[in-house]
């Protein structure tokens, strides 16, 4: 081998040490950054949730602990219950719709026809837009008097008088849900499409030879092979939907009467509009627990998928 001379061998050995020192240094730099700017705030948020944090004592870092008072006050509030239910509905409908439409679109564009790949890529144009722009845009589309949504629905006769999309408590949550489905589905679709391409063509051919029609092929070949991907995508959509603050804030600010309010937005309102930072932190920590649980499921599905 080349490293026969003692001097050369020494150089190579020294480089191996240098290499691993460099790699650990690289890793340490990004991990320290993440732990300081995400880990620390998460922990400090937990600390704040056990303190009475107001504008009076906000400039101090340490304040007397008040136990579970913030949680008792925030979770006992009827608004919290309403907002928590909204969040579950908002996230649930979004996951089902985004994964469902995403799967349908991915299957459609997996067929062989001209422009299929180009059109599939173009869908991401809605996902790439800043969430606040999407919120502003849909607020204009859903405007009661001059909005294009009411115009089109009236023109084709689906409704006979304008819907108050954003100012009627019965519709506000549905409106922000529709906007968020439009915003998020392309991402789900692209990930599902990637999962589809990894299914071997031979499996379909074998199923066809066994006399399986399109529905049977979907049921017995596509779905089982795609299952881990669908689970992982569902987790990702849940995580992203829990973040949907900008879009709702732009469209309704959670109103009217908290009908479209969700937990992250509620936490923001408690902290920055009512200046009850302790309450905001308590609602925040409660939400963290939920997101964390989903994240752990996601990590597990990635493992399963990696092993499969």
């Amino acid at each position, binding site marked *: 081998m080349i490293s026969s001379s003692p001097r050369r061998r020494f150089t190579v050995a020294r480089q191996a040490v240098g290499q691993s020192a460099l790699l650990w240094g690289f890793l340490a730099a990004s991990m320290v950054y993440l732990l300081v700017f995400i880990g*620390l705030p998460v922990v400090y948020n937990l600390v704040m949730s056990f303190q009475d944090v107001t504008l009076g004592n906000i400039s101090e870092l340490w304040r007397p602990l008040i136990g579970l008072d913030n949680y008792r006050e925030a979770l006992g509030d009827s608004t919290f219950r309403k907002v928590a239910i909204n969040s579950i509905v908002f996230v649930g409908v979004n996951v089902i719709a985004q994964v469902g439409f995403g799967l349908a679109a991915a299957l459609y564009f997996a067929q062989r026809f001209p422009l299929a790949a180009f059109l599939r890529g173009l869908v991401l144009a809605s996902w790439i*837009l800043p969430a606040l*722009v999407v919120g502003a845009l849909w607020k204009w589309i859903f405007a009661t008097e*001059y909005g294009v949504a009411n115009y089109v629905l009236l023109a084709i006769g689906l409704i006979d008088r304008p819907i108050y999309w954003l100012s009627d408590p019965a519709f506000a949550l549905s409106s922000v849900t529709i906007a968020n489905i439009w915003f998020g589905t392309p991402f789900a679709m692209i990930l599902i499409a990637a999962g589809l391409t990894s299914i071997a063509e031979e499996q379909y051919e074998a199923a066809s030879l066994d006399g399986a029609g399109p529905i049977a092929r979907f049921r017995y070949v596509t779905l089982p092979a795609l299952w881990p991907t669908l689970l992982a995508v569902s987790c990702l959509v849940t995580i992203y939907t829990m973040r949907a603050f*900008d879009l709702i804030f732009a469209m309704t600010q959670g109103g009217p009467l908290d009908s479209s309010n969700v937990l992250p937005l509620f936490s923001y309102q408690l902290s920055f509009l009512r200046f009850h930072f302790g309450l905001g932190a308590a609602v925040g920590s409660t939400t963290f627990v939920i997101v964390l649980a989903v994240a752990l499921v996601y990590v597990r599905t990635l493992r399963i998928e990696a092993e499969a």
Partner: protein
Amino acid sequence: MNGIVRHLLGRRGTALICCAFGVAGMICFLFPVYWMFISGLKTSAEIFASPPSFVPEHPTLAAYRIVFESENVARYMRNSLTIAIPVTVVTLVLGSSGAYALSRLRSRLIDLALVVILVLQVFPDVLLATPMFVIFRYLDLLNTFTSVILATSAKSVAFALVILRPMYRQVPMEIEEASRVDGCTPLQTFRRIVLPLMRVPLVVVGALTFVQAWGQFAYPLTLLSQQELQPATVGIYGFIGGEFADWDRVMAFASVFAAPVLILFLVLQRKIVAGLTTGALK
């Protein structure tokens, strides 16, 4: 049924019908984006016309002129850029080096680091805004770009690590070993041999990071109360906060703000799609 249709039309006919439905579906899906751009081109009379016009009758840049002259759009855009560029740089430096380490080191600690990164990625930024506000206030960094840049970079560094790690596997180890045998130090090998091979993934991650930082809203909203420092997202929000809004002007502002993102997307579309699909699920 499918068989009969295929028999009647032949393979090529079916493909063309699929294509037609695909194009039609895409036009419907992307209609809101079109609506945003043409709403900004309408006159303030036409914007509130009933029925609405689907092609502007007298396209005008009046709304654009008004927002640039009286709504400080140029300043908002400059602030957005002042935030997005450093965030992209920080993310690329930490993300490219950290992901390289994650892909090359063999240790149980790496598995732990990966789980930590995935988990840290999921906390909604608006929830982190409450503790960040108190911490940055204590450090006297409120109303500085530094606070927003540091906060925004954290999430994109986590994202970059997740996306880039599997892509380093495509760089063959033999090339690195050859470079080392030639006497390059590990840092030189990384900078001169490995990074140039990673150009495309780095461009994709850089573009996605820029887009995300450009659209960042929660941190500037909470950490920057001085209007002169606020980026365009906060500016647009201020514009639509009320019950009534001049939608031609709002959409002109939104179009100006969204245009760089859409252009970046159209240029890099193929690479972004490929990058997302290898990174997010591996």
